[in-house]
């Protein structure tokens, strides 16, 4: 499959015909992958009659924006409001999570004190505990705190996660000591070292962690589904589900709603594509 092209000349001559089947195969696969998304967007512009007509209409014959208008003004839920809720929760979570992880990873990587390794391994071992174990008790805690239907339930419990601490600690360990020592000679205290030296040097890993924290919170489904039942407090993934239960036979509207729900993620992906894939391919596989 790979390699085995003896000379440059032959490689060049052979490349086009040999690559053609591969290219055609990729095109077919890409079409299959894109079809559902194209179908969703296309249907969102169709009238209800056209959406269910056979044979299927690949291109809407009578394109309309009615579905979007109705979905955006529906009394059953407010997509823009859900998007705002998701944005607020995900941003708050990301800022707090990255901050907490950095504060925790810093002494674990760069200071010496009794119990350092014990604490590191203690919190790291929690990665082994499946989330299902704490689902019910944490829910009861939310009831006791009166946090059901509040953003607190969506933000605070997740902040106890430790993967980010691990990720940042590994990165902080690799920063040369000399930089820190020079700053100490200049009279910097540890907070200044963290803020002026460690963090600026760690922007790539902080950004990776931020992208994953944001995506994790944005796409969270199970927990918000049960802790937030008030329509005005719902996040986008949960809100859009309530839509699908009401509009189960109105495909044009349903697809307009899912298209709107997909747009923020698609835009974010186009902007952060490189970060995302680079982060994914290094995180977890790095030695």
């Amino acid at each position, binding site marked *: *499959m*790979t*390699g*085995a092209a003896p000379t440059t000349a032959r490689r060049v001559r052979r490349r086009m015909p040999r690559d053609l089947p591969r*290219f055609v*195969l*990729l095109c077919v*696969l*890409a079409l299959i992958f894109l079809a*559902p*998304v194209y*179908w969703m967007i296309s249907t969102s512009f169709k009238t209800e009659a056209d959406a269910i007509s*056979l044979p299927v209409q690949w291109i809407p014959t009578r394109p309309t924006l009615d579905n979007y208008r109705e979905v955006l003004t529906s009394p059953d839920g407010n997509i823009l409001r859900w998007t705002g809720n998701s944005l607020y929760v995900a941003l708050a979570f990301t800022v707090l999570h990255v901050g*907490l992880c950095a504060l*925790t990873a810093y*002494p674990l990587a*760069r*200071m*010496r*004190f009794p119990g350092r390794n014990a*604490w590191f391994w203690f919190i790291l071992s*929690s990665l082994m*505990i*499946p*989330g*299902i*174990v*704490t*689902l*019910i*008790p*944490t829910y*009861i*805690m939310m009831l006791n705190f009166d946090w059901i239907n509040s953003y607190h339930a969506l933000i605070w419990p997740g902040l*106890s996660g*430790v993967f980010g601490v691990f990720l940042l600690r590994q990165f902080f360990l690799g920063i040369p*000591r000399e930089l820190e*020592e020079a700053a100490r*000679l200049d*009279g910097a205290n*540890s907070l200044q070292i963290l803020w002026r030296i460690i963090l600026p040097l760690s922007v790539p890993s902080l950004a990776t962690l931020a992208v994953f924290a944001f995506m994790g919170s944005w796409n969270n*489904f*199970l927990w918000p589904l049960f802790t937030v039942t008030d329509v005005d407090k719902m996040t986008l*993934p*949960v809100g859009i*589900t309530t839509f*699908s239960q009401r509009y189960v036979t109105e495909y044009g509207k*349903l*697809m307009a709603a*899912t298209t709107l*729900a*997909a747009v923020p*993620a698609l835009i*974010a992906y186009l902007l952060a594509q490189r970060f*995302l*894939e680079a982060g*994914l*391919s290094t995180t*977890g*596989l790095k030695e």
Partner: protein
Amino acid sequence: MTITQASARTSTARAPTPRRRVPLEPYLYLLPHALLFFLFTVYPIGYGLYISLHRWDLLNPVKAFVGSEFYRNLFTPGTPQADFFWKTLWNTTFFTMVSVPLLLFAALGLALLLHRPIFGRIFFRAVFFMPGILTVSVMGILWRWMFDNQIGLVNAAREVLLGAPPIPWLSTEGLAWVPIVIGTVWWTVGFNMTLYLAALGNVPISLYEAASLDGATPWQSFRFITLPLLAPVTLFVFVTTALASFQLFGQSLLITNGGPSRSTQSVIQYITEEGFTNAQYSSAAAMGFVFGLIMLIFTAAQFGLMARDVKGGEG
């Protein structure tokens, strides 16, 4: 912090803090996260055990101690808890056994197609990766509708291409897994593909050159160079994908709602039904522990496998 202290520090090689009384500073840094960690990770484990050993009724302030009753229920055939818990656990296991190999082979196949330069490579990578950024609800609504009995695209395509009658995918036991598995592969294969592409990029070209000098066929290079070098990433992908598949929840909830007759209900969906819909918190907490323990054993076994493999790879 005085200068003499600081310079003394530089002279003691590798010991950033001089030996003195226990410093307070590191603990202050650890404190905020530690508080949250105890409150939302350590405490709920104990609290969950407590809940599972008592009869938890929100309306009744007295939570009677019942010992292992809710655990025994799970192992007493005939109780609805036992029947549905093991049935849905089997459903989840079945889903894992079907989806993991598909997600491994499809990801490897896509990565092999894309790893050598080709026109439009960045575009193709983006197309295969893109579904993964959609939330599970968009993905679920989309695939429920793709396989809709009346107007789904899949049945419409069968009609047009084969002249075949529509198949009631969502309401036929067994067949209801098809949209869930296909939807999941479509949704997540791009992540695994990216991991494989990164691994393929790290295979030294010189190995292939040497092999081709020795007269190796492309298949032989693949079999004896590429595949062995991909073993660590394959194990990693296998472990992460299997763990994710055992967490099945949103796909089956949204595509089939666990039906028909619970044949696609996942164990997590059943636990949430028992807890949140039936308000049987103690029973659900007990199930959480039993499923959690099964997962823990599974995870530990896989980590053991990974550790052994990494060691074997080095030796």
